[in-house]
């Protein structure tokens, strides 16, 4: 990244190859929308280019990148919120080789994840899928490591409740009151 910062922008390709898949997965878990996620990944790398002068040696590139990734996501949420609400379709299963039961389970889990408030979903995705250490997440969110641990645990507990609720009554997801009050993810636009 230091080389990129000092003008060798072609080196960004190396970083792109290394981080596009984790970033893409971060966004698909957050949005459940492949198109939006790909756009977001592109936007993150454009911002890395634009703001490369603000990168300071000594900070991990990964933490810095996720900072940009979070801001990009926040901007996107703001933007989509001002657009007309069109309902997002759930992410289509992309692994047809999985057996039906596992696929159903994964879909249910993804749905439960989508019903969590944005910040809880984010902390779970970061700690579980992006495999960020609690210390890194704490730096990212600007809080104490202890607070991150507590939040991860609370998010996990809430996910468990939502998941069990869905498992017992899969049709009830749309009427879940939590969604109406705390879910800050807006419906994403699918029509292009």
């Amino acid at each position, binding site marked *: 990244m230091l080389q990129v910062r000092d003008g060798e922008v072609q080196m960004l390709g190396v970083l792109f190859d290394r981080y596009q898949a984790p970033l893409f997965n971060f966004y698909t878990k957050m949005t459940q929308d492949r198109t939006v996620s*790909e756009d977001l990944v592109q936007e993150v790398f454009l911002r890395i280019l634009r703001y490369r002068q603000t990168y300071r040696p000594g900070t991990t590139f990964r933490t810095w990148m996720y900072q940009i990734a979070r801001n990009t996501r926040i901007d996107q949420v703001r933007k989509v919120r001002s657009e007309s609400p069109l309902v997002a379709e759930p992410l289509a299963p992309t692994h047809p080789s999985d057996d039906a039961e596992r696929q159903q389970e994964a879909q249910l889990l993804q749905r439960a994840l989508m019903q969590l408030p944005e910040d809880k979903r984010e902390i779970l995705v970061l700690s579980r899928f992006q495999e960020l250490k609690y210390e890194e997440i704490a730096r990212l969110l600007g809080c104490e490591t202890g607070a991150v641990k507590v939040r991860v645990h609370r998010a996990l507990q809430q996910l468990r409740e939502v998941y069990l609720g869905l498992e017992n009554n899969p049709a009830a997801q749309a009427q879940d009151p939590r969604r109406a009050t705390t879910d800050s993810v807006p419906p994403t636009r699918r029509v292009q």
Partner: protein
Amino acid sequence: MSKMNCQQIEELLPDYLQGALAPARAAEVEQHSEHCTSCAQDIVMWKQLATLPQEKPSTESRERFEAMLHSYVATSPTTAPTHSNARIPQHADAKPAWNFLEWLRSPFGAVAWSAALILFGLLIGTNLRNRTSSEHPDEIASLHAEVTSMRQLVALSMLQQQSASERLQGVSWSTREDHLDPQVQLALMRTLRSDGSVDVRLAALDALSRHAAQPLVRKGVLESLPEQQSPLVQVAMIDQLTEWRDPDAAQRLLKFEQTPNLNPAVKQRAAWAIAKLQESTQ
């Protein structure tokens, strides 16, 4: 081993989940979870999260990135390497990192100096008006012309930016002048036809609709209707055409309505518009 309660376990659980506990402590958590359903379920939930599939970005993603990088390098001369040990040679005649003239010619420079000029113009304008409102009509007129051309320049340069929000701003710049410059009109038409973002296309349509009196604008909108991919934009266009009561619109819409695989909502809107237009000509 002493029995731990849930509260104590809760403090250890997050580290246990990330595998960051010493074996002895991890064993304590496991022992506790054997007879505590709540903690056990948390652990199961965590493990289950790993079953969510890993998504693979599409192959176009890398191509888009290359294109973005390329256009970024092309538009910002300051990206030339400043280190002598640059691994990838860029140009034999590498430009200095900060070239004021180059910067002025870049889109960012253009936006910056046009903003400065506009401010300057406005300041002088207000000053003149305060002192002698009709003493220097020529100067005021020339300043006005200068400001107008600056705005057009800003609009044109912003319409070509990478980011959709900047292009949106470009469209809104183009609406700051009552008179529509032919070059800006062309750029707006191009945006309406081929911009990647629905919002930008809608904004361009809105900007163009201010100049509906010009037949070229109406014709352009009418012609680009079948090329549109987004039903939202199509419906907005149909509404505009109905409002303008363009003489050719009814006939063209009749043809457009027959397009196979047309979005049902768009089709319905087109039928409504045709009825409305025919009604008005009778």
